[in-house]
């Protein structure tokens, strides 16, 4: 329960199409219209600056949009979605800062369901890149 998890974007590297499709599914209504085709500026990389630490992450256009616009809306985390989707969105909103299962349960209002959360994350077919943090990773994307 104390193992920190985050979105391992390396995991998504080998599944580009699925990544784009999945990330788009989390866009707000406004940006759903803007991203009308897969080719729309998806390859552009932007430097996202952490407002607390000054640390920089390079994000693709889609991810940058999610983090700086869609994720700040209140309904981003409250809208009905699967457990995995909710956890994924939580990491998008918090800048992919690692969180333990216990912390995740608290943040998404599912205290007492830590075991369910852990089982979901452990099932790789369901996890959507939500993996335990590997040591030596210097960048939190």
């Amino acid at each position, binding site marked *: 329960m104390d193992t920190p998890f985050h979105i391992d974007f390396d995991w998504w590297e080998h599944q580009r199409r699925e990544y784009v499709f999945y990330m788009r599914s989390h866009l707000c209504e406004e940006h759903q219209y803007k991203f009308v085709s897969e080719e729309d500026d998806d390859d552009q990389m*932007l*430097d*996202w*600056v952490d*407002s*607390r*630490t*000054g*640390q*920089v*992450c*390079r994000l693709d256009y889609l991810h*940058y949009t999610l983090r*700086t616009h869609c994720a700040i809306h209140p309904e981003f985390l409250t809208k009905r979605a699967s457990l995995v989707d909710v956890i994924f969105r939580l990491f998008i909103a918090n800048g992919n800062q690692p969180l333990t299962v216990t912390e995740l349960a608290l943040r998404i209002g599912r205290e007492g369901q830590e075991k369910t959360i852990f089982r979901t994350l452990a099932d790789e077919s369901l996890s959507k890149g939500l993996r335990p943090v590997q040591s*030596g*990773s*210097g*960048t939190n994307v």
Partner: protein
Amino acid sequence: MKKTQKRVVADWVESFCLHPDDYDHLADRLLESSTPWSNEEVALSLLIFKLMQEERSQGKTQRGNGNVEIYRPDKGYEPGQALRFPVLEDIEGKVISVRKGFNWTDGEFRVIVVSCDDNCTREFASMLPKHALSTDDLGLSGIEGQTVDEFARFLLREHGTHLWGQIKKDLISRGEIVCLAGYWFPRDLLVEISSGHLNLVEAILDVSAGGPLTPEEILQQLGVRADGDRQLMIFSLNYALQQDQRFDEVGPSGSVLWFLRSMEPTEIIFPPERLRCQPVVPDVHLLSPDLEQLALHLHDEFSPENESYGAEGPVEMVLSYPHRCTGTLPLGANTAHIFPEAQISPRIKITIRDALSGDQLPGWVVQHERFVSGLGPLYEKYEVPAGARITLLPCAASSEVLVQIDLRKSVREWVLTASAVDDKLRFRMSKRLVGVHYAEEQIIAVDDVEDVEAVWERLHKNRVALEHTVLEVFRELVQLTPQGAVHAKTLYSAVNVARRTPPEPVFGELLKRSYYRHVGEAYWTHDSDSEDRYTD
């Protein structure tokens, strides 16, 4: 100053307090100067010290330890530079490369790639002007171009009350640096004044009729040479006298005067019971506008202070019976500017000058009990009755007051007269020779002071209720006019023969009790059918 900076300064001021190295700094500076410092000098020195400490701390923050600089997103860095990241648990690293950065919000900036001590490589923003980590904490420059000294003075001007209050509190609680008459010096560095010297001081004051004498005069008479700093010698003497119960500091604000306590008049040490009174709490007695105005014009020293009262220049007042009896004057809001005041000394020695003869009399301002003593001889000399008009004038010297009894040609007139019959207070009209101008509604002559005072004492000892006293006096007064009406001012003056009372409670009785009836202007009558009978 920017809004955010104002907030930071306000927070700094709010959390201001002295730490051990602040005391050490002040003690060192005082030792170097060997001279007591004033409140302002102490405050400035401490503020400048703390601001410079803050500046050093920020510089250290920016420069890091040794060659390691603290990371700030608005700064530019080159490869090879060592940086520290306080917000990442003080991790350190070295810049290995710099590249261009871009996003839609911040536009163009730089990104430094840092190899950190935890074997991780991280990227950080650089040359990014707007970021939380880029703010200047206290803004020691304050207003642009100010030196630390100027900023310290600015802080004292804008936040002096709070800052000085905290400094004074911290210094006093520490106790190592002592204060006297607004000057400060380390106690351990004071010149020793021996018990032999103190005995000599007692003798010097005794020979001078108790005093008052300045510390300079005392030193001169002691024949003590002020080797070294004279100011320190005076401070040390003052401190030693302050610690000794034989001596009383009786100077007004800004000056120090010493008096022998054993030679102070009795009424100073034990204020007369005749004058003892509770101050009126504002808004307790709900008076009508007319009665409120009347009370205001009586200028009783225990009435609520009128905040808008900005008295200056001569003051004409009407002498009340209690003050006539004790040879005193009231110290109220309307006369406060005439007399000197002191922040700490409860008693201040003054000189009363008779405006008519030029004679000088010793007087005392007793601040807490709100009276000025020493007028007895003047009242006797001019046969001043209660109700007489007296004018007070300030003098050039702050410790002198000019008292002018408003004399006129003596004429026999019908005046209200108090006496004691069968141990009760009685009032009647009698013809008296009056040689001073007086307030018609407030003049009261007294037949036998001793008997009247005995009645006062009995009423005081038995704690007779105000309601009863007012009613008894009213009944006496109402018989004396053809119309059967009593002026409110007359009632107030007469009640004060029986007990010391401000006008508000007396006028409050008129409104509260159904047996008093207002008949117009300031006149009241009394309906005997609706009152309850009281017995003493």
